[in-house]
């Protein structure tokens, strides 16, 4: 047991993660070869060319519409779609990512506000606690993501188009983690602290602002981290129906229609980068808030 050793960034973080990532990339290249080779062999046989194995490997890495694009193909597609074209162009992934990001953020904002309101209601109104909380949990066993396209179509029928419908789907997905996390957070003060507020003759309102809200802040940031990721998924799926012409989701759908696998992978990675940035941003905001509020470093 080497528990007492101080964990080092290099040996406990970077090195193991690096090795796993390297293994994944190697596995990716291997998969590229094995998944693309059958088609390539077929093609070569039809054209009557015979190639050596190493040439075959090269060919599988250079296909136009590969079953599995090689990492460098995806990387170059990403490079071209972000830095190779102006940001405002429809071929720029930055433009599409921005479209998705804007509806993600709007939906995330709605969802967070809604979730906090629900949590405040549940902690203060017993009838709401008993009747509503079970349904909030049930609401998430409904695969609402799956009916997102329908909601878009319905809202389009009543002339609500653009950002709002997509944002509403993000709202539905993101309010739940916030509501559940905040109920937990607002109830996290111990009975002793609540009794202390009581002995100060604090009103419900004062106890709420001076005790419950500060106590719930760590829960708040943990839950909005989940919520922002869910918002992004909601926005992407919201773009799947044919109505959407811009956004990561529409790029995915277009790529799947025309079998542009490289484009699909590039869009997927762009979406992942956006997700990571959002989560990192929330994480930093949480840390800064904790420090400002004087939390002990853990």
């Amino acid at each position, binding site marked *: 047991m080497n528990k007492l050793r101080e964990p080092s960034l290099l040996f406990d973080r970077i090195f193991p993660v690096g090795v796993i990532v390297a293994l994944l990339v190697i596995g990716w290249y291997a998969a590229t070869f094995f998944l693309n080779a059958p088609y390539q062999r077929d093609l070569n046989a039809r054209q009557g060319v015979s190639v050596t194995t190493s040439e075959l490997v090269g060919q599988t890495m250079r296909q136009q519409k590969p079953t599995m694009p090689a990492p460098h193909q995806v990387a170059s597609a990403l490079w071209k779609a972000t830095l190779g074209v102006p940001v405002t162009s429809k071929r720029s992934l930055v433009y599409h990512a921005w479209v998705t990001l804007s509806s993600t953020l709007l939906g995330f904002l709605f969802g967070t506000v809604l979730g906090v309101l629900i949590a405040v209601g549940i902690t203060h109104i017993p009838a709401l606690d008993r009747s509503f909380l079970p349904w909030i949990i049930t609401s998430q066993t*409904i695969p609402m993501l799956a009916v997102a*396209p329908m909601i878009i179509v319905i809202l389009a029928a009543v002339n609500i188009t653009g950002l709002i419908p997509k944002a509403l789907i993000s709202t539905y997905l993101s309010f739940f983690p916030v509501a559940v996390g905040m109920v937990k957070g607002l109830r996290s003060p111990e009975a002793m602290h609540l009794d202390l507020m009581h002995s100060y003759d604090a009103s419900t309102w004062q106890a709420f602002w001076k005790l419950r809200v500060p106590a719930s802040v760590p829960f708040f940031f943990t839950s909005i981290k989940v919520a922002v990721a869910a918002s992004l998924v909601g926005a992407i799926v919201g773009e799947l129906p044919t109505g959407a012409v811009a956004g990561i989701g529409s790029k995915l759908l277009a790529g*799947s229609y025309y079998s542009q696998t490289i484009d699909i992978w590039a869009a997927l990675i762009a979406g992942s980068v956006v997700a*990571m940035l959002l989560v990192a941003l929330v994480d930093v905001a949480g840390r800064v808030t904790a420090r400002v509020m004087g939390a002990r470093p853990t």
Partner: protein
Amino acid sequence: MRFRLNWHTVVALGLMLLSLFNLPFTATSGTALPLLILWFLVLAALGALAVPPRPALVASFGLLGHAAVLLLLRSLKGAEGTATLGFYAALAASWLLGWRLVTVLSGDGKRGSEGPGTFVSLLIPALFGFWILVLWEAIARGAGIPFVLLPPPSAIGHRIMGSLPILAADFHQTVLKAVLFGFVAGSLAGFVVALLADRYRFLAKGLLPIGNMVSALPIIGIAPIMVIWFGFDWPSKAAVVIVMTFFPMLVNTLEGLRAAGSMERDLMRTYAANHWQSLFKLRLPAAMPFVFNALKINSTLAMIGAIVAEFFGTPIVGMGFRISTEVGRMNLDMVWAEIALAAVVGSLFYGVLTLIERTITFWHPSYRR
């Protein structure tokens, strides 16, 4: 018996008065039926004002209020879209009485009293669900909302009854093939990899940050790729489900395996237990709450993954296929029927997992009475 005012009932009585001056309720209701409804509501309101709330009293005021609202829905028959102010006022009044009923049932804000019994604690959320359906039905039919926008629940129920074979076929294709297989394979793979990563710490150090990162990614986006690889039929959907369920299981199991206390672990060491003995006798049981947490998360993810993956190409059967094509044909009642099916399946899935969890982790503090 004495009476004490509460705001729900007072507002409800005001609304009843408003409703009385705005008769009739709908084009075909006449005045006799509305008066009967209002009479029921007034009786229910009197019951809601009486203290102390004895069970028989609460039951009778609840029954009267709900009888009134069912009659209210009946008055809409053949008169869709003609509801007047009186109708909505009566609806709001009966809704407030319903709220009052739930407040009384959940202890009326008294602290320290023990919680309601099993029946009441099931009844309260059931009433909430009932009211969502009632308000939906009353507003959708009362205001005459176009069918293509929001079909009333009764029409959806009718459609479910009328297309059971189609729903069964979709259920078979999506749930029994794609969801179940993907859920079991993905969760099992995540679990096994977590056990390996627990044995070889290096693997855990490398996998945990990646797993945490991946759980924030929009994995659902791999659906088109999987359809290209595995074809239109259910294997491609199962593949999406496997990838979606793998990481939550991995991350949660790894976290759970660290949940056993150091004291218990030291005890295992003093017994000279080897890695596998301490794993199976101490740490795996301690990890079970985390494993079930992952299984619950995965149950939802599996349904979502399979249905969304069907949007990218599918044989002509399946819940996702049905949703996307019926939206195109504006058959919204069929879409809602599929949603209802998905909701029921999702809730049952979740419920079954909860039941299994209770029998396996019966020792956990959260189940103690």
